[in-house]
C-alpha cells in the first residue's frame, strides 16, 4: 500500500541521474570546444623572459599601445639579444635559421579574436589597463595559454565595471566591436 514515497524517491533519483548525465555531456562538449594550447614553432619561455630577466611585455609586443594588435616580435628583435645569449642552444639555432633565411617565425597566435570582433589594443593600453588584466599572468607560465571564457560577457562585464553608465552606452553598443 504505502509505496508512494518510494515511488517519489525513485522519481527523484531518476531526475538527478538525468541531470548529472546531461551536465556531464554538456561539460565534455564545453571542454572540447574551449581553446587549448597550440604548439609553437619555437619553445619560447615567457617565465624566463618576463620573471627572470624582467623584460616588459611591450619590449616584444611593442605595438600594443599604438595599434590594433599587439604584434609579434620580429626575428631581429630576438636575434639582437640571442646573438650573445645562449647562442648555442637548439632553440636559438632554430631562431638563427629563421633570421638567416629572412623568414618570419610562424608563431601561432594564442589569444585569437574571431573574424567578426574588432578589438584594438591601443585604447585599452592607453587607458592604463595592464596586460595581465586580460591575458593573465603570462609571465608566470612557461607557455602562453589561452584565457578561458574570454567571451562577449567577459568583455561587457569589464566595460560595465570600468565605466560610467553614460559611457557604457557607447561601450556596450554592438558596433563598438562588431562592424
Amino acid at each position, binding site marked *: 500500500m504505502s509505496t508512494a514515497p518510494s515511488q517519489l524517491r525513485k522519481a527523484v533519483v531518476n531526475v538527478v541521474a538525468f541531470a548529472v548525465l546531461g551536465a556531464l555531456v554538456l561539460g565534455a562538449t564545453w571542454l572540447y570546444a574551449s581553446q587549448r594550447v597550440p604548439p609553437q614553432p619555437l619553445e619560447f619561455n615567457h617565465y624566463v623572459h618576463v620573471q627572470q630577466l624582467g623584460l616588459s611585455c611591450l619590449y616584444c609586443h611593442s*605595438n600594443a599601445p*599604438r*595599434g*590594433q*594588435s599587439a*604584434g*609579434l*616580435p*620580429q*626575428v*631581429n628583435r630576438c636575434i639582437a639579444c640571442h646573438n650573445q645569449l645562449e647562442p648555442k642552444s637548439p632553440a636559438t639555432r632554430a631562431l638563427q635559421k629563421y633570421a638567416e633565411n*629572412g*623568414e*618570419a*617565425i*610562424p*608563431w601561432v*597566435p594564442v589569444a*585569437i*579574436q574571431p*573574424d567578426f570582433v*574588432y578589438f*584594438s589594443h591601443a585604447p585599452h593600453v592607453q587607458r592604463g589597463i595592464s596586460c595581465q588584466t586580460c591575458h593573465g599572468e603570462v609571465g608566470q607560465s612557461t607557455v602562453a595559454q589561452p584565457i578561458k571564457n574570454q567571451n562577449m560577457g567577459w568583455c561587457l562585464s569589464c566595460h560595465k565595471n570600468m565605466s560610467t553608465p553614460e559611457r557604457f552606452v557607447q561601450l556596450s553598443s554592438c558596433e563598438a566591436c562588431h562592424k
Partner: protein
Amino acid sequence: MSREGLTRRDVLKLAGVGGAVAAVLSGCGPMAKYVRRRPYVEQPEYALPGKSVYFATTCRECPAGCGLVVRTVEGRAIKVEGNPNHPLNRGSTCARAQAALQGLYNPDRARGPKVRGGKAITWEEGIDAVARALQDTPPEGIVFLLGLAPDHLAELVYEITQALGAPPPIRFGALAMVEARQTLAAAAEAVFGQKAVPTFDIAKADLVISFGANFLETWLSPVAYAKAYGAMRQGHPGRRGVFVQIEPRMSMTGANADLWLPAKPGTEGLVALALGRLMAEVAGVEAPEPFAQVDPAQVAQAAEVPLEKLEKVARYAVQDVERVVALPGGVVLGYENGVEVAQAILALNGLLERLGKPSLVYFTPPAGGREPLAPATYKELMDLVDRMNAGQVKALFIHGVNPVYEFPKVLGFEEALLKVPLVISFASFDDETVPYAHYHLPDHTFLESWGYQRVQVGADREVLSGFQPVVVPVFDTRATADVLLAAVQKVGGALAEQVPYKNEVEFIQKQVAEFQKRNDGIYQAAHPKVFWALFLQHGGWWTQEATATPAQAQVPTVQVGEAKFDRGELHLVVFPHPILADGASANNPWLQETPDPTTTVMWNTWVEVHPETAAQMGLENDDLVLIDSPYGAIFASVYVYPGIRPDTIAIPMGQGHTALGRWAKNRGANPIDLLGFGVNGAGDAAFGQVRVTVRKMGRRQVLARKENTVGVYGDGRYQPVDKRKEEEEKVTSTQE
C-alpha cells in the same frame, strides 16, 4: 579619418618609401579567414600592425590624372580615396579609380615575363631581348605604341627614340579615339588660337550648352567636370546653372540636362549655327558670317528639333543669364566634318563674347611648360598599319594600349602584327595583344608604379601629378621604364650616354627637380631629397594659385557642310561605357557589377533601341540581335531605351574581350568592331558616320540589370506586358 592630419603627420613615413616597401607585404591583419598572420621579419618604422598608412598617388585608369590617396594597412592597399588637395579632383573619384584595387590584386594579371606560347623567362632574358631589339633593329624600324598614360614613360621613350633616331612614340587608345582630342585641338586652334584641348569652366556657368560631350562620364577629365557640374548646379547661392544637351542618344550627361535635344545625327553643327543666329537676333546684332548662313527654321526642321526650344535657349542665354559656355564632344566630332562642327560649336563662345559675355574657356597650362606628347590620330594609326604591312616595322613595343581589342577590326592591325618580326608587349594583363607578342614583359599596375602625369585638361593651373608605389609589386612584374633603361645600359655606347638614367626613379627625379626652382608651387624645399619627399607626400606638384586665364574666342569662318553616312538603316552611336570606359579595366569585377547609370545594366553589352523602333522591328528587352555594319557585325541584347532617337541605336564600348581575365573574357560584344575607315579633317576617326542594320535573332539573352523589368517606364505604373504591346501596336498603326 582625417585626411588633412595624415598628410602632415606622414611626411617622414612617406620619405623612405623607396627602400622600405620591400618588407611591407608580409604583414598581417585580423582577417584570419583570408590572410595568414605572420610577424614582420623587419617591421618598417611607419607600418604599425592595424594602423593605416596613406600614400598619395595618381590615377591612371584614364589619362586625366586625378590625385589619389590610397589607404594601406600592413602592406596591403585597402581603399582608394581622392586626394583632397589635388587641384583636379579635390578629393573625389570616379567608379574606375575606386575599383583600381581590383586591378592591382587581380588574379588574372600577368605574373612574370614570358615568351610567346607562355614559356616563362627570367627578366635578364627579357631585358636582353629588348636590348637586342634596340641595338640590332634599324632605328626607323622601331615603333613604340603607347597609351595616353603615363607621361613619364612617354617622355622617356621619346628621349630614347630621339637618341636612337627612331620615330617618336605613337600614343593612342580607344577612349582617345571617341574623344577626338586632335579634332578638338584643331577646332580650338581656329577659335582660340591655341592648338590644345580646351577646358570649359562650367563651374562658373549659368548656362551650359553641350553638343554631345559626355563630360560627366568619361570625357577628358570626368571627375573635374563632375566637380564643376556640382558647383554649377548648387555651388552659388541663389543661382542655379542650367544645362542643355544636344545629342542623338541620351547619355548619362544628357540625362542630367534641363533640356535634352535629340538632334538628327550630323546636324549638330547646323544647330549650333542656328542657335548662334537666334542669339544674335535676340541680342539685336547682326549675326556674324558663319551664323548668318543658316536659316534656323530650316535647321530645326532638318535636325528634328523644335525651333521654339532653340529660341528659348537663345533668349535665355542672351537675356536671362550672364555666363554661358558651349562645348563640343562625343559623337558630334565623329563625322568627316567633325572639325568644322567643332569650330561651329566653339564659335558660339566667340559670339557670346561679342555679346559681352565673359569667356568660360581656358587652357590648362602644361606642367613645367612642357606639353605632354599628343595622342596620335586615327590617320597616323592607319599609316602605322600600312608600314607594318609593308614590313617596315621591325620591332614594335606596345605599352598601355591593347590594339587588338581597341582598334577597329577593319584596320587589319592583327594581320599587320603578324608581319612584325619582333613584338614586345608590356601589358600588365594577358590581354588580346599578348598572344601576338614575342616577348611579354609585364609592367606593374599603376598602384605599384612610379611616374607622373602632366595634367592636360580640367585643371586651372600647372599640375604634375605624381605616382608612387603604394604596395610592393604583387607579382614578378617590372616597370617598363626600368626594363628599357636596363636595356639601354646593356646596349651602352652613345645611346647610354644620351639616356644616362640608372632607373626610372632617377629619370622622374630629374624631371621633378625642374620644379624645385619654382617658387609658385604649393611647397618649396632647398634639398632635392626633401623636395622629392614633398612631391611624393603631396602626390605631385602644382602651383599655389590658379594661373589659367580665360581664352579669347574668335568667330572663325566655318563651312559646316553635310556629314556623310554609310549605308544602313540606323545610325550607330558607339559611346564609352560610363563605368568601364574603353574596357581596359573590364576585368575588375566591381566595375562590371556597378550598374550603368542610365540602363542599370551590368556585366554585358546592350543595344539601346527606341521603343517605337523596337516595336516596329518586333524587338523586346533582352532580345538578341545581330548588328551589321559595312565593316563588321556583333551580337548584343536589346535594351528598349526611351532616351534615344528612333533612327539611332547606341552600343557601349568596354566589353567583348576575348582575353584579359575571367571576368572580362567572352562577355558582351565590342562595338569598335563595327567602326570603319573614315577620318575627319584633323585625322581623327569618323566613328559617327557608321550606319547599321539590326536583325532579330529569335533568341533572348537576359541582361543583368539593377532595375526590375517592369514598372520603370513612365511614372512607374505597372502595365502587363500584353497591354503594353497593345498600346505600342496602337502607336504604330496610327503612324501607318
